């Protein structure tokens, strides 16, 4: 634990490149045809007719399949009016919804043929924003009687709690919709042979992808093998297989021909799920000396066109509403509303960044209202270290936390007092470039359904090498390095003799995969425990072979040898022990589960420069404490934090998915979607802190999403802080120059 180890994955990725789905040259895919989807150009329409004859006439077209051809597939669950079809049949509900697919011999023929599929639409009024959705004049699913797909309310003391407050601040803010944009778009390939499907898919979870394909096609999961090649990023948006992945498998089965599909970026920006998308109204109240006594969060979650994961996101936001603060009265309410836009699902943080963004803006606005330094308000309201484990009003059981220490540490590293002095200097001098200092303190929930746990199988071979089969699934995190380190730590076997395999449902029958920052705490713990079990078994074997009592055996991790105490010359190595294990093999299978989630926490300081004349924002420093317990490999953990910070800052500064009044996406290419680049970010300053959890033997929590959760509100708070002396109270994200400039001007003119 704690050693800096460079990744074993890298030489391959840096020389031949990874093998992503579109790179596959497997024999089973020889002669594969290409799948191209026909997507809806309308946000909301009835499908009145489909004509595929022209497309069928194009040379190279193997097959054209539409929603009308899906009768061989199981019908959606009974009575579910909001079920999402694989290919739209009667209606389309977002621009980009798959309506048909063409299968062609050549890569370039697909687009030509897709253009010739004629779909007749009868346009319906689009439900584009949340106001439209809640008004309910047009319904996406008329049978369900409402656009509100789910709702939940806490029954609190409500207004009484606020009536007792000396100060109450209320505001409505937007946590805008953003696009995950993994650099590898979605991709899949499939081959049907001997009544079995093999599906290669760029996913975070091979097993869930298998179940999605089997369920979608109405075949037994044992008839589907899913293989996950290298995956070029997921960020929550590649959980499972998506309807396109299922359709690709279906096309292989229907045509009997291996097929492959990789979406274009323009398809990806409308076809892959988006993240965030909440409108939040908060009310925060307390005393003039900075004690917060009541907090209410009222949010509307934009689900997009189908219910996918939106209710889960809203639930997580609601549960985590009060964050790191000890607030006597907390209430949270949500509505999940359907709109004619791309469906919304998980994106790095999934529900927790939204909770943190709301409370951290609320705390800053409360601090501004009472004229107190936001540092001080936070300090006065943190849950104290002696209150853990701590059950929040939202029903979350926080395991461990040192919130004040995290804030103090990050403020010291940032030089908070000096920054405030510099800010005062610039304000006094009327400097056109003002300094803003933004704080955030966060706690989040990791472990991603810990009850279902994660699997590991560890096999020691006769030649002393090891294979680890993990149910967890990497897409950049460095599992191969991390899992090899865990095995090496216990068994002393050199890392280059350890092979980590993942993402093959035939080789690994049970597995869950990667989301919710669960890998190390569940999958890593499973590997750790498997190593311990193997070690225990090895001890028995060695005792037999050396004719010694188990208690007299010694294992040396430095050379990987078992010896009898006092006889240093005779040692048994792992290869020998594997041979001794005979046909049983020297192996262990572990399925580690936990009945509780873990709660990493931290604090961020963002420093921005804002040009008060143009509104242009520059992030100049970003300092963080992200405490997810002990760190296995700082190289990997820091990488997760850095990537997360960039995505969080991107939401605060730049990125937003936009639609026009007709529900047409206007950010559907990378020219229009302002993906954050190297020039818009500084180097990050990371401060260490490690508070273990008692919930797993490694003491670890998840680090994958922390950076994003902390960064967004810190950067947003910094931008507001930079111009707060001009009377600005709030600026919605993304804090574009236009928005900042407008906010300054409105404050000046007293609007």
């Amino acid at each position: 634990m704690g050693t800096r180890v460079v990744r074993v994955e890298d030489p391959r990725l840096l020389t031949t490149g990874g093998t992503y789905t579109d790179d596959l040259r497997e024999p089973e895919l020889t002669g594969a045809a290409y799948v191209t989807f026909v997507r809806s150009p309308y946000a909301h329409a009835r499908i009145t007719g489909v004509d595929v004859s022209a497309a069928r006439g194009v040379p190279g077209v193997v097959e054209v399949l539409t929603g009308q051809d899906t009768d061989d597939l199981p019908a959606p669950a009974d009575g579910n009016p909001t079920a999402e079809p694989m290919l739209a049949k009667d209606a389309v509900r977002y621009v980009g919804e798959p309506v048909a697919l063409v299968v062609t011999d050549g890569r370039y023929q697909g687009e030509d043929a897709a253009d010739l599929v004629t779909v007749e639409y009868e346009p319906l009024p689009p439900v584009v924003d949340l106001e439209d959705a809640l008004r309910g004049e047009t319904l996406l699913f008329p049978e369900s009687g409402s656009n509100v797909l789910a709702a939940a309310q806490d029954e609190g003391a409500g207004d009484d709690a606020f009536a007792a407050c000396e100060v109450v601040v209320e505001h409505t803010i937007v946590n805008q919709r953003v696009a995950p944009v993994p650099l590898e778009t979605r991709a899949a390939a499939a081959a049907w042979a001997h009544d079995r499907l093999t599906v290669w898919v760029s996913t975070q979870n091979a097993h869930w992808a298998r179940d999605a394909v089997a369920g979608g096609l109405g075949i037994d999961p044992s008839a589907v093998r899913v293989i996950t090649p290298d995956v070029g990023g997921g960020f929550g948006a590649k959980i499972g297989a998506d309807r396109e992945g299922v359709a690709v498998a279906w096309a292989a089965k229907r045509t009997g021909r291996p097929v492959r599909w990789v979406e274009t970026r323009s398809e990806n920006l409308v076809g892959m799920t988006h993240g965030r998308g909440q409108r939040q109204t908060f009310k925060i109240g307390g005393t003039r000396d900075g004690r917060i006594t009541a907090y209410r969060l009222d949010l509307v979650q934009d689900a997009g066109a189908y219910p996918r994961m939106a209710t889960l996101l809203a639930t997580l936001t609601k549960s985590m509403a009060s964050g790191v603060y000890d607030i006597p009265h907390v209430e949270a309410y949500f509505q999940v509303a359907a709109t004619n836009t791309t469906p919304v699902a998980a994106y790095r943080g999934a529900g927790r960044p939204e909770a943190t963004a709301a409370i951290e803006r609320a705390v800053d606005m409360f601090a501004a209202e009472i004229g107190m330094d936001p540092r001080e308000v936070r300090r006065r309201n943190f849950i104290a270290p002696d209150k853990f484990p701590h059950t929040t009003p939202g029903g979350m059981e926080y395991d461990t936390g040192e919130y004040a220490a995290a804030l103090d540490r990050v403020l010291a590293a940032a030089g908070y007092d000096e920054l405030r002095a510099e800010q005062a200097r610039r304000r006094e001098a009327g400097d056109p470039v003002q300094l803003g200092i933004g704080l955030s303190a966060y706690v989040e929930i990791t472990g991603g359904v810990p009850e279902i746990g994660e699997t590991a199988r560890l096999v020691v071979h006769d030649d002393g090498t090891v294979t680890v089969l993990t149910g967890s699934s990497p897409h950049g995190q460095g599992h191969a390095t991390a899992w090899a380190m865990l095995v090496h730590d216990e068994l002393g076997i050199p890392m280059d003799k350890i092979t980590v395999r993942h993402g093959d449902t035939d080789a690994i029958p049970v597995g869950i995969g990667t989301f919710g920052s669960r890998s190390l705490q569940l999958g890593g713990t499973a590997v750790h425990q498997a190593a311990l079990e193997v070690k225990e078994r090895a001890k028995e074997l060695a005792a037999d072979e050396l004719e010694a009592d188990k208690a007299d055996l010694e294992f040396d991790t430095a050379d990987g040898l078992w010896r009898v105490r006092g006889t240093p010359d005779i040692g048994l190595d792992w290869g020998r022990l594997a041979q001794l294990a005979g046909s049983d093999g020297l192996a262990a299978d572990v399925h580690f589960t936990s009945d509780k989630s873990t709660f990493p926490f931290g604090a961020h300081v963002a420093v921005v420069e804002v040009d008060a004349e143009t509104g242009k924002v520059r992030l100049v420093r970003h300092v963080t404490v992200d405490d997810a317990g002990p760190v296995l490999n700082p190289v990997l953990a820091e990488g997760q934090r850095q990537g997360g910070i960039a995505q969080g800052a991107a939401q605060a500064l730049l990125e937003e998915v936009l639609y026009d009044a007709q529900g047409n996406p206007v950010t559907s290419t990378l020219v229009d979607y302002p993906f954050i680049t190297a020039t818009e970010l500084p180097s990050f300053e990371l401060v260490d802190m490690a508070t273990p959890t008692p919930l797993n033997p490694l003491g670890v929590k998840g680090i994958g999403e922390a950076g994003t959760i902390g960064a967004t509100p810190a950067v947003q708070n910094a931008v507001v802080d930079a111009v707060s002396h001009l009377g600005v109270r709030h600026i919605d994200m993304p804090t574009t120059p236009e928005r900042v400039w407008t906010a300054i001007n409105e404050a000046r003119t007293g609007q």
Partner: protein
Amino acid sequence: MKVTITVNGEQIQDDVEDRTLLVHFLRDGANLTATNIGCDTTSCGACTVLLDGESVKSCTVLAAQADGAEVTTVEGLAGPDGELHPMQRAFQAEHGLQCGFCTPGMVMAAVSLLKENPHPTEQQVRVGLEGNLCRCTGYHNIVRAVLAAAAEEEGA
């Protein structure tokens, strides 16, 4: 049409459609799949290769335009004995890659950047890589890797 391109020192000939992009020639014709495609608007740089020594986005060059030219992809960067190029070494040492999808293009762009400016400042590295997107690393370690490679080449 027939196109001949020297890729990583090897002459590759292929019969292609007029509209075939250089990136598809490399991936499908030359079967070199390291060079990736991350967009359809020349925005991401995942497809960056060296064309006659200059870095280009191979998704915006037709194979036909590269007829007779020399192309270097990340597969051609390591020495004949497999020894990693200083830029590849630096990317590993500094953890400048996570999922690895942007990496081949990023490394080629970085190699080209140092050729033009062997001693860049951090800001110059950031500006030089503006056309190469990465979703995983936050660019932090990519920038450090390029600076480390520059320092190493200077020391060598």
